[in-house]
C-alpha cells in the first residue's frame, strides 16, 4: 500500500482523478461552475450518478405504465381503456393484439436496460464507488461523462421506435429471430426492431465505458489502508458486476450488430435456409418485391445462445449490486457486523463465475441438444449454493442484532425475504423436466418479477432511503417512507404471488387474450385480482415520489453520518463537495465494526485508529 504525498504545488486546474496518481493537490475552491457545466456537462461522479438516477426513475414510470396496460388487457380483454380513446382511435381505446405484443416487449426491454442496469450500476455505482473507497472521483472523469452521453442516443432510439411505422419492436425482449428479423413475422419488425437494436447497442457502449472506469477506480484509487478485504460489500458487488459487464456484454453487442446487418444488408446470420413465414418465401422477406433476397444458411438458435450468453449474466448484473446494498444496509441498521464477510465476497465471485455457464437454461425447449441441457441444469442448480450462503449470512447478520426498523432496513429485509421466494422457484425451475412443463407460463413471470421487482427494485428503494442523506444532506420522511413500504410490500406480493397460481394452471405468457382458450377462462377472476393489486401497487408509488422531491428540498437537515455507519462515505460532507473528502484519510479496519467493546460508541469508523 503506497501513499505518495507529493505536494504538487501550482496545479490548480486539475480535475480530481486527472493528475498523476498518488498526489495530494492544492485545491482552490474559487470558481462556481455554471448551470450547464455543473449539471449537464458534468465530469463529477456524483452529478453523473444523479443523471442516471433521474433518467432511470423516469423510465421506471414509463415501463410501469406499460405494465399497467398489460395487466388491464389481461383482466378485461379488449375492453377500451377509459380516457385513452384519443391514443387508439382505430380501436376506440382498446389494446390491439399487435399493441399488446409491443407492450410486453418494450416493458421488459425498458425495465432491464433502461431502468435496473442504469439505476444499479449507473446511479449507485457512480455515486458510491469513489465515496466508499475514499477517492476524489472516478479514475477517468471524462470517460464517465461520455458513459452517460452514450445513453442519450440510446434514449433517442428506444423512444423513436414508438413513433415509427409498424410500432416498436414486438418480438419479445429477447428478440428471437426469425420473429425479429423478418418483416412478415411481427409488425414491429419493420423499423421498430432496428431502433431497438440501435438503442441496445448504445446502452452497451455506455455500460462498457462505465465498467472499465469502475474496475480501474476500485483497484487503483482506494484510500491508504483500505485493502480489498476491507471494502464494503457494495463495492465488491459493483466490481464483480462490472467484470460481468466487461466479459459478457461485448458478445451481445456483436450479436445485435449481426442482427442489425441481417435487417439492413440482408445478411443471413440468423435466417435458416428454406424458411417460410406466413406463407411468404425468403425472396420477399425484407423490404418488399424489389428486395434482392436475403442470404440464407444461418441459425436462429445461434442468436439465442449469443443473446443469453450476455443476458443470463445480466440477471446477475441486476441482482448482485442489490445484494451488496442489502449487506451494507442490514449491517448498519442491525448494528452488527456482516456475518461471514469473506464467504460473502467469495459467494459473489462464485455466483458471477457460475453465471457464465448457465445461459442454456433459458433454452430447454428451444430445440437445443438435451444432453447439453443436462449440463446447464447442473450448473444452474449449483448457483443455489453461493446464493444460500448469502441468505444465511444475511440472517446471521440480523441474528442478535439491535435492529432499527427504519425505512431502508424494512426495504432491505423485504429484499431478503422476497429474494428467497424468487430464488427458490429458480432452483426447481432449473430442472429440465420441470422447466419443459412450466416454460413460457406465468410461473416464469412470477419468478423473475420476485427477483427483479420484489428483489432488486426493493433494494434500490432501500438504497435510495439509506444514501439519500449523503446525496442531498437531508433525510427522507420516515413516516411516509414506512407507509410507502407497507403498501408496496403488500401489493407486490398480492400481484406476483398469484402469478405462481395461474402459472401452475398453465396460463401462457405473451398472449393477448388467453381466454380465447376454454381451459383458461376460469383464471380470469384471479387475473382481475392481480390487475387490481398491480394498479394499487403502481398508485402507491406516489408516496415515494412525493417523499423524494419534498425531502430533497424541505427534508430534515442531518449531519455527515446520520445512521452512525462505519464506512468511508459517511466521512465526507453531506452532500460531498468537489473532490469529496475535506481531510486526508487513513483506513484502519473493515467497514462493519459495530458494538465493539473497545469504544464507548456502538461503532468504529473505518478511519479511527485505536
Amino acid at each position, binding site marked *: 500500500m503506497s501513499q505518495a504525498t507529493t505536494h504538487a504545488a501550482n496545479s490548480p486546474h486539475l480535475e480530481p482523478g486527472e493528475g498523476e496518481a498518488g498526489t495530494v493537490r492544492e485545491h482552490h475552491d474559487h470558481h462556481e461552475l455554471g448551470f450547464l457545466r455543473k449539471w449537464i456537462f458534468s465530469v463529477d461522479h456524483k452529478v453523473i450518478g444523479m443523471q442516471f438516477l433521474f433518467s432511470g426513475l423516469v423510465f421506471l414510470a414509463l415501463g410501469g405504465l406499460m405494465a399497467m396496460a398489460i395487466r388491464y388487457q389481461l383482466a378485461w380483454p379488449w375492453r377500451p381503456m377509459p380516457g385513452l380513446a384519443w391514443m387508439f382511435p382505430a380501436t376506440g381505446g382498446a389494446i390491439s393484439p399487435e399493441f399488446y405484443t409491443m407492450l410486453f416487449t418494450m416493458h421488459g426491454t425498458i425495465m432491464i436496460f433502461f431502468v435496473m442496469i442504469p439505476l444499479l450500476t449507473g446511479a449507485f455505482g457512480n455515486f458510491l464507488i469513489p465515496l466508499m473507497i475514499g477517492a476524489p472521483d472516478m479514475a477517468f472523469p471524462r470517460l464517465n461523462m461520455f458513459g452517460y452521453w452514450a445513453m442519450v442516443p440510446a434514449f433517442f432510439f428506444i423512444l423513436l421506435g414508438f413513433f415509427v411505422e409498424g410500432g416498436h419492436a414486438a418480438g419479445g425482449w429477447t428478440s428471437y429471430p426469425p420473429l425479429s428479423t423478418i418483416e412478415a413475422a411481427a409488425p414491429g419488425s419493420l423499423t421498430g426492431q432496428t431502433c431497438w437494436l440501435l438503442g441496445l447497442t448504445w446502452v452497451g457502449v455506455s455500460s462498457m465505458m462505465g465498467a472499465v472506469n469502475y474496475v480501474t477506480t476500485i483497484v487503483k484509487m482506494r484510500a491508504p489502508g483500505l485493502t480489498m478485504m476491507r471494502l464494503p460489500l457494495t463495492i465488491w458487488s459493483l466490481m464483480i458486476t462490472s467484470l460481468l459487464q466487461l*466479459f459478457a*456484454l461485448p458478445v451481445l453487442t456483436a450479436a445485435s450488430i449481426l442482427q442489425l446487418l441481417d435487417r439492413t444488408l440482408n445478411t443471413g446470420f440468423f435466417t435458416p435456409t428454406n424458411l417460410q413465414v406466413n406463407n411468404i418465401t425468403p425472396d420477399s422477406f425484407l423490404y418488399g418485391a424489389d428486395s434482392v433476397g436475403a442470404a440464407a444458411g444461418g441459425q436462429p438458435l445461434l442468436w439465442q445462445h*449469443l443473446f443469453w450468453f450476455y443476458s443470463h449474466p445480466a440477471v446477475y448484473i441486476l441482482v448482485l449490486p442489490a445484494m451488496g446494498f442489502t449487506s451494507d444496509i442490514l449491517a448498519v441498521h442491525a448494528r452488527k457486523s456482516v456475518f461471514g464477510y469473506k464467504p460473502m465476497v467469495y459467494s459473489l465471485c462464485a455466483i458471477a463465475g457460475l453465471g457464465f455457464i448457465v445461459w442454456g437454461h433459458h433454452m430447454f425447449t428451444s430445440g437445443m441438444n438435451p444432453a447439453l441441457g443436462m449440463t446447464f441444469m447442473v450448473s444452474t442448480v449449483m448457483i443455489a449454493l453461493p446464493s444460500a450462503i448469502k441468505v444465511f449470512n444475511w440472517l446471521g447478520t440480523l441474528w442478535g442484532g439491535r435492529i432499527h426498523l427504519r425505512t431502508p432496513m424494512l426495504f432491505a429485509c423485504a429484499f431478503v425475504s422476497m429474494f428467497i421466494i424468487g430464488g427458490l422457484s429458480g432452483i426447481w425451475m432449473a430442472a429440465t423436466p420441470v422447466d419443459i412443463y412450466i416454460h413460457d407460463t406465468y410461473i416464469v413471470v412470477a419468478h423473475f418479477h420476485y427477483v427483479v421487482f420484489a428483489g432488486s427494485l426493493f433494494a434500490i428503494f432501500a438504497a435510495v432511503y439509506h444514501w439519500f442523506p449523503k446525496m442531498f444532506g437531508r433525510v427522507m420522511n420516515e413516516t411516509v417512507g414506512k407507509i410507502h413500504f407497507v403498501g408496496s410490500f403488500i401489493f407486490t406480493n398480492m400481484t406476483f404471488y398469484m402469478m405462481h397460481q395461474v402459472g401452475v394452471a398453465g396460463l401462457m405468457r405473451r398472449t393477448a387474450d388467453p381466454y380465447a382458450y376454454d381451459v383458461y377462462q376460469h383464471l380470469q377472476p384471479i387475473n382481475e385480482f392481480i390487475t387490481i393489486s398491480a394498479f394499487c401497487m403502481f398508485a402507491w408509488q406516489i408516496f415515494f415520489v412525493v417523499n423524494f422531491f419534498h425531502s430533497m428540498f424541505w427534508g430534515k437537515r442531518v449531519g455527515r453520518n446520520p445512521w452512525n455507519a462505519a464506512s468511508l462515505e459517511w466521512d465526507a460532507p453531506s452532500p460531498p463537495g468537489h473532490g469529496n473528502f475535506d481531510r486526508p484519510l487513513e483506513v484502519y479496519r473493515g467497514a462493519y465494526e459495530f458494538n465493539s467493546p473497545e469504544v464507548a460508541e456502538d461503532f468504529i469508523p473505518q478511519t479511527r485508529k485505536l
Partner: protein
Amino acid sequence: MNISPAALPAFDPAVDAPKPHHAIYDYDSGPPVNRGKFAIWLFLATEVMFFTGLIGTYIVLRMGAATWPDPADRLAVDITALNTFFLIVSSATMVKAVERAMLGDNSGLIKWLALTVLIGTTFVSIQAYEYAVLIEDGNLPDVDIFWSTFYAMTGFHGIHVAVGVIWNLCILIAAIFRKIPQEKYMKVELAGLYWHFVDLVWVLLFTIVYLM
C-alpha cells in the same frame, strides 16, 4: 427490535459543515501499473469478447452448414497474405515508436510512428480495394452465408484498424507540433497495446477466414 428508533442526530455546523479550502486527496493503491494501462487492458478484454462473439458465430455457422466453399476459390489469398505481412511489420514499427518515446527521442518517435501510420493506411487501402473488386463481381453480403460472415468479420477488423490509424495519427500530430516528453510516453504505449491487439486479431481472422 426497535420500531421507532431514536431521532437522528441533527446537523451540527461545527462538525458537519464542509471545510471551505481543502486539498484533493488522490491516492494510489493496488498493483504498480498506470491507471490508463490498467483500463486499456480491461478494454482489450471487452474487445477479445467482441471478436469471440464474431469468430464463434463463424465457427458455428460453418460447422452447421451442409457445404462450405473453399476460401481460396473465392478470395485473393496471396494479396491478403502480403497485407498480413504488412500489418505484422507495422507492429514491429510500433514497438520501435514506443521505445523511442520511452527514451524521450521525439524525432525517432515521429519517424517510427509515421511509418506505422503509413503501413496501417496501406492495409486499410488494400482491404478497401479487395472489397471494391469483390463488390464489382457481385459478391455482396446478401448473396450467401459465406459472404455474410466474410464481410462482418473482416469489416469489423477493418474498422478497428482504421480507428488505430486515426489514434496513431493524433499522437503523431501531437508529437510533431507539441513534442511528447519522456514522462508522457504512456500515451504512445496505450495506442501501441491497442495496435498489437488489432494485429493479433488479424492473424487469427486471416487463418480462419482465408486459409482454413
